[in-house]
């Protein structure tokens, strides 16, 4: 899930003051930001109270199912069209993807209410850790299911680096070195460490990423069609 954390309230106020907004509509997210306890119903209520204390009028709030889902968010904002029309700005308590989806769905200025920090694993309720960078070129097959791109602070594919001491990381000194963990787990599983893990293909993660299953289906259908036609001729 996408991990978010509260944005500095003074920055939110500065954003609202920047356009002279007095009335605000709030939107949250029923998915990640609800689990992260940053953009669910309780957090929206708290934000509404904080804004009222600061002298703003809150015209309403809504927590859609998934803020980053364009169809769902459009539907949600249509349901609340009156409250949104009554507002000068919409403040979104979701990740940046959700903020942009809301911005594409309403005609009011939209501001981020959270900071998006990482793609996180839920270790236990309220405890999140970054384990994957969505790099598009997975090396977990070589690294015993431990991602060095993410969990080594330097992102080294081959390690440990010269700072490892007693199996611990030199940058985050309270953590075990990711490469020590990798090599140990490989050994425990009777697997051989790769001689040298080759350089990463950063073109697998060019910005902006996009993927359309529809287009892929169309391409596959065309290919099947060509093969059938080719077989006949």
């Amino acid at each position, binding site marked *: 899930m996408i991990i978010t954390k509260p944005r500095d309230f003074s920055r939110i106020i500065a954003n609202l003051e920047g356009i002279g907004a007095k009335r605000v509509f709030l939107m949250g997210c029923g998915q990640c930001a609800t689990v992260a306890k940053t953009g669910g119903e309780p957090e929206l209520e708290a934000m509404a109270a904080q804004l009222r204390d600061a002298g703003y009028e809150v015209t309403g709030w809504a927590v859609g199912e998934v803020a980053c889902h364009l169809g769902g968010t459009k539907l949600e904002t249509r349901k609340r069209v009156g409250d949104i029309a009554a507002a000068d700005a919409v403040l979104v308590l979701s990740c940046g993807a959700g903020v942009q989806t809301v911005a594409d769905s309403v005609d009011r200025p939209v501001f981020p209410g959270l900071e998006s920090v990482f793609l996180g694993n839920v270790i236990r309720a309220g405890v999140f850790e970054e384990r994957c960078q969505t790099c598009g070129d997975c090396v977990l097959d070589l690294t015993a299911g431990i991602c060095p791109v993410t969990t080594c602070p330097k*992102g080294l594919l*081959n390690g*440990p680096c*010269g*700072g490892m001491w007693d*199996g*611990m990381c*030199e940058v985050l000194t309270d953590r075990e070195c990711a490469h020590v963990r990798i090599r140990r787990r490989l050994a425990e599983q009777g697997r051989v460490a790769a001689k*040298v893990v080759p*350089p990463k293909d950063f073109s697998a993660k060019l910005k902006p990423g996009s993927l359309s299953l529809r287009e892929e289906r169309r391409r596959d259908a065309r290919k099947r069609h060509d093969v059938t036609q080719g077989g006949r001729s």
Partner: protein
Amino acid sequence: MSKLRDALDVGQFVVTGEVAPPHGTDLGAMLASVDRIAPYCHAINVTDNQGATLHLSSLAASRAVLEAGSEPIFQQTCRDRNRLALQSDLLAAWTLGLENVLIVTGDDPRGGDHPKAKGVFDLDSTQLLEVARGLNEGVDMNGAPLDGGCDFLLGAAAFPEAEPSDIQLERALQKIEAGARFFQTQAVMDVDVFAERAAVLREAGAKVIAGVLLLKSARVIRFINERLAGLMVPEHLAKRITESPNPLEEAVELATEQVVALRDVVDGVHIMPLGADEALVSIVEGAGLA
């Protein structure tokens, strides 16, 4: 014409020293340091934004060392440049007459003077060694032929005394496989333990130049133990220095003893006097290497 290569090839015990380029453009202090230590060294490492703090580039400073009549070891870290810049700087180094290269990962930026910088680490040190070996063979990292190649003497860093030692050694052997011909190591603390592990690397075909650090004061020892994870000064050595009426003299004596002990077990020493260049001279002379 690398003197370091020649010396290592004939089995001569080598001495390397280290200078830091300036935080600015005045090369005076660095060159004065080179003048003082060069007569006692086969080659001098020129650090690359060491400790992730801003300095003039190792490339230009290495050239300055060469022009001053001494032999530099151009250090290149993976922290500040991507694969294009790293290869491009290596090619530049060759045209500037720099033949010795030490390839290291580099400290993380969050420990340096620009903690908001992006640590690049596009390649790691093992991968960069492979790339540099390719340049020596006349091809870039895509295998495309170069219009004029290089013939670097390639070095890497190792930390033989770090635990877990099997992982540490496996890692160093990986670097040899990638192209490292010599190692310059982290500071030796226990010569016996060090020698045993260095032997594995020497058997694998690499030359080992052992790091000797001048533990010149209680402050330095505290700094190493607290700030430089990866280097822990054992209690008995720390005591010997801190309880001495003259810590600097005691540190020189300790370093000299280490050099003498290392003479029979490795291929050379890399002396890190932490700015006390006179101490380097005393150590080399004291060990009978001058």
